[in-house]
């Protein structure tokens, strides 16, 4: 009976908590951390965490925020010796937007001045006006996603369309909130393309099970898949959401990470506005962005925002109300966000350095995306779509039946088995594809393209060596050859 169980006994915990999974920091990561403690050199490619793998923070924003942290520095006559004038000016600007500096709660939606800068950025990017009142800053984009899903999910009967493979924030949050994940499969053979017919099928199936499908998530550029959606695809998706009365959640956190030129980033909002009335006034859209990715990589700051389009004012107020319970997003990150959307301009003292640092990072990411894709594809049993965007490589590993059997014996899902062996042999810590979702019987792993460029060749060699040995051990009797 309940009385004999203590409140925090495992048996009496909220089932939703027990059911939710977040593989990015799950079994593989925990094992990797254990091995690291034992002294093994680990290369953490499990999470999009650029600074942890040696990427340096951009200089200008760090200068500005340091000055905001310690405003008494601004009074020192020698300050100009170690901080450029534009950083000093910008720090004063952001401090003037706060009501008490970094240590005061801001407006629960974020500093109005920063939200205005975000709106101006969106307008420049898309060519359509953006209302700062409909932009909420959050402690990372993840918090924003959780807030919105919390509004949409009322019960297990509410379904959210989520791509498979997906970034498991979505599956975990839906699980925690007690909703239902309605998967739609991306086509690996079509470069992880999105077929609207798949969408229709998923929705129909869900409805036949009594699920009310309420929202659709797109991740563009994709995570873990990296594909960049075409304009035509986005139009189809928006049309679909309009017809099916779904709110579209556009996760666009990787919009700065584009590694091919055929499909530049185009925001869901721009496409929607381009489609004109009536649809541009009807589709409910929430777009998410962050300071964690791009070439900024400031994951540890926890800075993000969402922009609402066509959300009724009273709903906006409810979302505001919930935001106000958490009082305010952290102010430092809001300043990072302001700086990200309004970086140094040509003519500014820090402009050249800023451009040099940013370009350096982006060009290197592009090269590493190529290196990794090619490296994986040179293995006979591995097929890897090119990383068009984002920060990940998601190769398909064709596992022989002996390996699958061995995994079963070990009580592990086959890709988990493979990834654990990879970890133990090479120190490369990845996330098994099962953490993101994949078709039955098809296995992947996700790695990031973030290790330093100089270390890439060695890492890929290390992988290939392991893969060769694995295939020799578990391959078919006529032997495995990379040719």
């Amino acid at each position: 009976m309940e009385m004999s169980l203590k409140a925090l006994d495992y048996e009496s915990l909220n089932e939703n908590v027990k059911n939710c999974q977040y593989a990015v920091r799950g079994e593989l990561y925990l094992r990797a951390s254990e091995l690291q403690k034992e002294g093994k050199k680990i290369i953490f490619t499990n999470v999009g965490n650029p600074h942890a793998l040696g990427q340096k923070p951009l200089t200008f924003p760090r200068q500005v925020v340091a000055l905001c942290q310690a405003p008494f520095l601004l009074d020192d006559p020698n300050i100009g010796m170690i901080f450029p004038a534009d950083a000093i000016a910008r720090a004063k600007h952001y401090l003037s937007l706060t009501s008490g500096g970094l240590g005061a709660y801001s407006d629960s939606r974020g500093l109005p001045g920063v939200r205005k800068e975000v709106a101006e950025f969106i307008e420049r990017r898309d060519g359509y006006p953006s209302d700062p009142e409909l932009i909420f800053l959050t402690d990372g984009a993840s918090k924003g996603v959780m807030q919105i899903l919390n509004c949409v999910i009322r019960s297990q009967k509410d379904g959210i369309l989520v791509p498979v493979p997906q970034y498991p924030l979505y599956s975990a949050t839906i699980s925690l909130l007690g909703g239902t994940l309605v998967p739609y499969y991306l086509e690996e053979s079509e470069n992880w393309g999105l077929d609207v017919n798949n969408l229709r099928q998923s929705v129909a199936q869900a409805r036949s099970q009594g699920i009310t499908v309420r929202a659709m998530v797109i991740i563009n550029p994709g995570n873990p898949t990296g594909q960049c959606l075409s304009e035509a695809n986005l139009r189809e998706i928006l049309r679909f959401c309009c017809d099916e009365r779904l709110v579209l959640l556009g996760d666009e956190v990787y919009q700065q990470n584009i590694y091919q030129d055929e499909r530049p980033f185009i925001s869901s909002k721009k496409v929607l506005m381009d489609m004109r009335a009536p649809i541009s006034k009807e589709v409910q859209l929430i777009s998410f962005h962050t300071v964690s990715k791009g070439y900024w990589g400031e994951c540890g700051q926890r800075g993000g925002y969402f922009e609402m389009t066509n959300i009724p004012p009273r709903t906006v107020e409810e979302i505001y109300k919930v935001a106000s319970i958490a009082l305010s997003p952290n102010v430092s990150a809001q300043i990072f966000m302001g700086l990200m959307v309004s970086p140094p301009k040509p003519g500014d003292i820090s402009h050249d350095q800023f451009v040099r640092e940013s370009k350096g990072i982006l060009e290197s990411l592009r090269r590493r995306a190529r290196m990794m894709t090619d490296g994986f594809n040179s293995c006979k049993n591995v097929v890897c779509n090119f990383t068009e965007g984002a920060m990940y490589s998601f190769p398909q590993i064709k596992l022989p039946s002996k390996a699958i059997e061995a995994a079963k014996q070990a009580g592990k899902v086959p890709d988990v088995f493979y990834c654990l062996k990879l970890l133990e042999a090479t120190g490369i810590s990845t996330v098994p594809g099962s953490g993101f979702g994949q078709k039955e019987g098809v296995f992947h792993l996700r790695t990031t393209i973030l290790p330093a460029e100089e270390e890439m060749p060695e890492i890929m060699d290390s992988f290939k060596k392991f893969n060769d040995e694995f295939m020799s051990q578990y391959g078919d009797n006529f032997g495995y050859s990379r040719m």
Partner: protein
Amino acid sequence: MRRFLINQAKGLVDHSRRQHHKSPSFLSPQSRPLASLVSLSRFFSSTSEMSASDSTSSLPVTLDSINPKVLKCEYAVRGEIVNIAQKLQEDLKANKDAYPFDEIIYCNIGNPQSLGQLPIRFFREVLALCDHASLLDESETHGLFSIDSIDRAWKILDQIPGRATGAYSHSQGIKGLRDVIAAGIEARDGFPADPNDIFLTDGASPAVHMMMQLLLSSEKDGILCPIPQYPLYSASIALHGGSLVPYYLDEATGWGLEISDLKKQLEEARSKGIAVRALVVINPGNPTGQVLAEENQRDIVNFCKQEGLVLLADEVYQENVYVPDKKFHSFKKVARSLGYGEKDISLVSFQSVSKGYYGECGKRGGYMEVTGFTSDVREQIYKMASVNLCSNISGQILASLVMSPPKPGDDSYDSYMAERDGILSSMAKRAKTLEDALNSLEGVTCNRAEGAMYLFPRISLPQKAIEAAEAEKTAPDAFYCKRLLNATGVVVVPGSGFGQVPGTWHFRCTILPQEDKIPAIVNRLTEFHKSFMDEFRN
């Protein structure tokens, strides 16, 4: 379209009118979701176009179709009265002469640095150096920063892999910082603390949410909460679909906590089929400001042990104690002193960088220390923390600084102590001044603020005032607070936002405006109250 919306709005008003004399919705878990009057005033003044989707449609994100738990939850600290204040503030810029005051003073929220309190210099020096570590390589830095702040920054950076303050950390927070915090807890309590029990979070509030998520599976799960309480608790219980089980603090005995009342409420809830999972205690109290006597704390710990309840100890005001006859004792210390160990009692302690003498609200730093539960439960907490990856690094660093400030002999020690003592003694002084002023008002009694940052006076409202409030479709205490705002520019929060014994009225006012503003506030408040009573006296 407009007529439809007005009719809808009228429906809401009628509904809320029927509701407002009852206790607020968080005290009656069975009550229907109530669209607050907040929405109403903002709705009519909204400039954005109403889209067709606000009518009865099947669109996912309309008021009719969003999660009812969202509709149900309320948070008065930033509610209606603040919106009115913000509009007044805007108007004040253009029409200075139209008002009997020249500025709005926000006494609704514990946000010290927005009212002129300065941050602790040593803390900010360390944070700045960690934000821009290349400063540590510059020779000029030594002229600008204190020696020990440079030392501390090096120490901290050495604990961060790659010195990368921009990287996601371990989901519980950087290990080295947790070690420092654990040592700080041990130094404070005299009992060991385990860094693995510590979860660093973006302020204490997300940690509270995590625990509510863990404990509440349905409305059949209840959490005992003090009334009056800080409405984070009622809001998060509503958001996570649980039931708030109230226990009333006794105003007549300085907001004392009676175990017999706890027991009574517990049994009543159980008889209704509610599984009561935890007891929330806020010490020092918010809004009530009482510091629990150690004996009282022992009784509470024993009660939780006997009844199998998790003790959720909100201790964010642990550094804010203003009276010589009371002292802060952590619940962990009390439990351990009673001989209760890991296997005996489940206890979660919450701390924050937002309060104390540091007041760093905007940094969003805090932690919870979770003790007395099995490793499989800890794994679940870790898993929840990991979905958000980690809390902001700057806030983590600040939490470690708060729990290990400069020590005697450190370069910054003297100036740090001067700053700290200056802030705390000023708070004590302001608390007393405001308390005395409130007690001098007709029909107003105000318990002393033993700790925290608030005063929670009780006002006996004359019947005429209550009727006038009703006519305006406002709760009586909100009516008083709005009148107060319009007459003085001072923003306070009506007691109904925190819960109070039905038929009593309070408001919460912070003690945070700077000392030089206090006399003017006292004068304006006194004048306003006199004219209010003149208008409504029976």
